[in-house]
Each structure stands twice: as structure tokens, then as C-alpha cells.
């Protein structure tokens, strides 16, 4: 264009005007150039060792966690949560009876007790997730349980943590699906107890005064998780039916009642932690001591075996 004759000097000439066409064509060329470069970049990234995943599912840890500031807690709106996404782990940090009565499908169970640290086995499984996984913590609306769990987990080095905004109630509101689990209730003890192991949910004094034959003592406490040693013993016989009883009658539908019935509380603990065969004995134990000493039970004695993991995947 302009690189042709240039001999005219300082006068209006016959030369070209403003090259509008070239200026516009440049934008087309720019688009082509960017498209070409983008394709080359994606191919290069796919072929190079250690190429980045195209999408990132965890926030960048630019700043340390600031748990003291509520506004700094990363929150996720319920509509942005897609259970079943392989890059997302949903963790229910509520207590077991709440977990059984309704949870986001596929939730892991990691209860946040008032006075107890988080289950290390579940935390280890969370740490083993691939980098970039979002960990969405679900609490109950109006409580700070999920926020406390987030603080505790980020203190253990986990990243990509979010609190589900509004808790489970916000998730349920527009009719989104929830998983529930019902624990079977045995009205009266009958049949052969051979395949069963009784679990006594009463307090220490009541258990010492008397209990069913071979019963394992797992007292109900809504502030503390079950003793890991006792859980480990029960794990070894978990293929047998665990029948939980207490000293007071169990309502027809034990879930949903507050305060939580001791037998239901203990049974919920076991179910939420993945024990496959748990039921509740509605009939209370009020009789005189007729049980054999606990050590005679056909449940393995306390060992140093580490407690087993919870029920990640929420498959109680």
C-alpha cells in the first residue's frame, strides 16, 4: 500500500487515504492469531509433562485463613453445589441423628462435636483427595458448626474448603433431594440372640448395676463421639446384628425427637459410621442384673487397633 511511490512532497497527493480496510482486517487477523495460539497452547499443555488441568476446582490459597472474621469464610450458594461431581466432596458436619434424618446425597459423615477433635481417619481421606477438590461443609442453619469445622480443617492444612450457605435447610428448600436413613426398631426381644450383639446405651451406673448378656457398653453422649476403642471392637463383629437398647421405652418413630433418645443416639452413631446391621430394641432394660460380665461377651476385647474410618460416602 504506502510503500509504493513516495516522491510527492508536502502536497495533497494522489496517494491512498486512511487505510480503513487494512485497519479492520487487522482485527480479523488478530482473532485468527489468538485462535491459533489458543489451540497451540491447549495442545502444548496436553502434551507437556505436568500440564495444568484446564479448570481449577479449588480457590488459590493466597491468604491464610482468617477464621476470626466471619466474612472471610468462603461460602458456596446451594445452587452451585452439584452432588456427584467428582471434583466435589460434600461433608456433613452435623451430629449423627441429624445426618440420618436428611443429608445432601453422597455426603461424608464428619460430625463436629462440641469438645472433641475431628475424626482423623476421615480427615486423612479428605487430604488424600486430588488437588483442586472442593470440600463443601454442610451444617445446620443458624449454627456455626460448619464454620468451626472449616477453621479446624484449614488448620490441618486442607484447602478448597467452603461452607454451604444456609446449611442443609437452604439446600432442601426448593425441593432438592436429600438422603435419609431409618433405623429398624425391634419391639420385643425374641428369637435366638446368637447372631446378635447387644449394645447398652445407658450410663455407667446403670450398666454396672446390670445389663443384658454379653452387652457392650457404649454410653450415649451427645457432646462426645463414642470411644474409639469400643468402636474398634464392634468393627470386628460388624457383620452381626448390633441391637442397641436403653433404660427407657423407645418411641414408635425414634428419629426426630428431641432430646435424642439414648438408644437412637447410639444406633445413629453406629449407622452413620457405616455399621451395616444396626437396630434398636424398643423394650427398655429395667430388670435386675442378669448379664454376664462384659469381658465374657463374644466381642473382642479392647485392643490397640486404631479406630476405623467413618462412612465417607454416607452409606449408612
Amino acid at each position, binding site marked *: 500500500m504506502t510503500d509504493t511511490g513516495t516522491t510527492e512532497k508536502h502536497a495533497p497527493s494522489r496517494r491512498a487515504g486512511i487505510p480503513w480496510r487494512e485497519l479492520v482486517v487487522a482485527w480479523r487477523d488478530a482473532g485468527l492469531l489468538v485462535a491459533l495460539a489458543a489451540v497451540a497452547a491447549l495442545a502444548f499443555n496436553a502434551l507437556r509433562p505436568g500440564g495444568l488441568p484446564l479448570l481449577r476446582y479449588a480457590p488459590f490459597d493466597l491468604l491464610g485463613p*482468617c477464621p476470626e472474621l466471619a466474612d472471610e469464610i468462603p461460602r458456596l450458594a446451594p445452587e452451585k453445589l452439584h452432588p456427584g461431581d467428582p471434583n466435589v466432596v460434600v461433608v456433613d458436619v452435623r451430629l449423627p441423628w441429624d445426618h440420618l434424618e436428611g443429608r445432601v446425597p453422597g455426603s461424608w459423615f464428619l460430625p463436629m462435636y462440641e469438645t472433641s477433635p475431628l475424626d482423623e481417619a476421615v480427615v486423612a481421606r479428605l487430604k488424600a483427595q486430588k488437588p483442586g477438590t472442593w470440600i463443601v461443609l454442610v451444617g445446620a442453619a443458624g449454627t456455626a458448626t460448619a464454620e468451626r469445622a472449616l477453621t479446624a480443617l484449614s488448620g490441618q492444612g486442607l484447602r478448597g474448603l467452603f461452607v454451604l450457605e444456609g446449611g442443609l435447610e437452604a439446600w432442601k428448600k426448593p425441593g432438592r433431594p436429600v438422603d435419609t436413613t431409618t433405623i429398624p426398631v425391634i419391639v420385643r426381644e425374641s428369637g435366638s440372640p446368637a447372631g446378635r450383639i447387644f449394645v447398652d446405651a445407658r450410663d455407667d451406673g446403670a450398666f454396672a448395676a446390670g445389663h443384658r448378656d454379653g452387652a457392650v457398653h457404649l454410653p450415649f453422649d451427645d457432646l462426645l463421639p463414642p470411644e474409639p476403642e469400643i468402636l474398634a471392637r464392634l468393627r470386628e463383629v460388624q457383620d452381626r446384628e448390633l441391637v442397641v437398647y436403653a433404660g427407657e421405652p423407645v418411641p414408635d418413630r425414634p428419629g426426630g425427637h428431641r432430646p435424642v433418645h439414648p438408644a437412637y443416639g447410639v444406633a445413629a452413631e453406629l449407622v452413620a459410621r457405616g455399621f451395616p446391621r444396626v437396630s434398636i430394641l424398643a423394650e427398655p432394660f429395667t430388670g435386675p442384673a442378669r448379664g454376664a460380665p462384659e469381658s465374657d461377651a463374644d466381642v473382642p476385647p479392647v485392643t490397640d487397633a486404631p479406630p476405623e474410618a467413618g462412612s465417607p460416602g454416607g452409606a449408612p
Partner: protein
Amino acid sequence: MNKPVSSTSPAAAWIALAWNHPIHAWVSVPIRLVVGVTFLIAAWPKLMDPEGFAWSIAMYQMMTPKYVHLLAIILPVVELVAAITFIAGFRVRGAAVVMCGMLVMFIAALSWAFIHELEMTSCGCFTPAGAKALSEHRETVGTSLLWRDVWMLFACGYVWLFDTGRWGVDGWLRSRKRRSKDG
């Protein structure tokens, strides 16, 4: 295009003359070299360490983390390709538009960081790496980096408007085509 303008007003004719003055081809060459080499130098470490570059992008907190990797993968290659074509004078105006686009993006990002005082927005409990990077960022933002980008934006705009690619592949291709036509 390139129609004679003898019938237009004298002002338009003077503009046309100034626009097409051969000096532009000469002025553009050093601009292309300086800006192009700057982009080449900038692209190389990003290509070598895309993860680190992704963190740099994330530090601006301008986009959702989900797409940061995508930008970190594509942008360095766009820089590289644009810089090479810019220096070589191949589709030079198109390359200049790409450069302008990237520079507008960089200026917007730096301005964003400057306006939002990114290093002041949190409670101060930065991770060591984040604190170091933000501190370095604070030293440079609003001074040399921003003005360097503004200067390069004007330079690339100049190339887009005035450079015909005479000294480069475009000019060589044109002269070759002309020669083959002539003879």
C-alpha cells in the same frame, strides 16, 4: 481502498499524506523490536512455569479461580505468537491489535490492584509466599509497570494505525507478488 483522494478536501488530503508517510515504516521497526522482545521475555517464564503464572493471575482476584488455569495456559502462547509475528512483521497490524488487547488487559489488572490496594484487603495473615509476592507487587504497581504498559499500548496502537509491514514479512510478500506480476 487506496483510491486517489485528489477530489477530497485539502485537509483530508493532508491527513492522508501524513497517514501514509514513509517515515512510519521506519519508526515502527524499533517499536516492534522493543515491544516484541519485551513480550518474548515476559512470555518465556510463564510458559516454563504455568502453575506459578496461574498464582500470579489469581493474586489479582479479578476472576473466578475455575478459569485461571485456562488463562495461564493460553495467555503465554498468545504472547509468544503475537511477539514473534510482531517482530517478524507478519500480519503486523493483526499482531498489533492482539498486543493492544493484552496490554489493555494488563493495564486493567494493574489498575484494579492499585485501586483496591490488594495488599491491604485482608487481616494480614498472609502465607509467606503470598506476602512476598504481594509486597513485590506493591513496590511496582502504580509506578513503572503501569506506565510501561501504557507506553507500549500507545506504541502498539501506532503500529496498528500506521505500519504497513514494509520492513517485515508482509512487505517482502507484497514486493514478491508485485515482482511476479510485473514480470
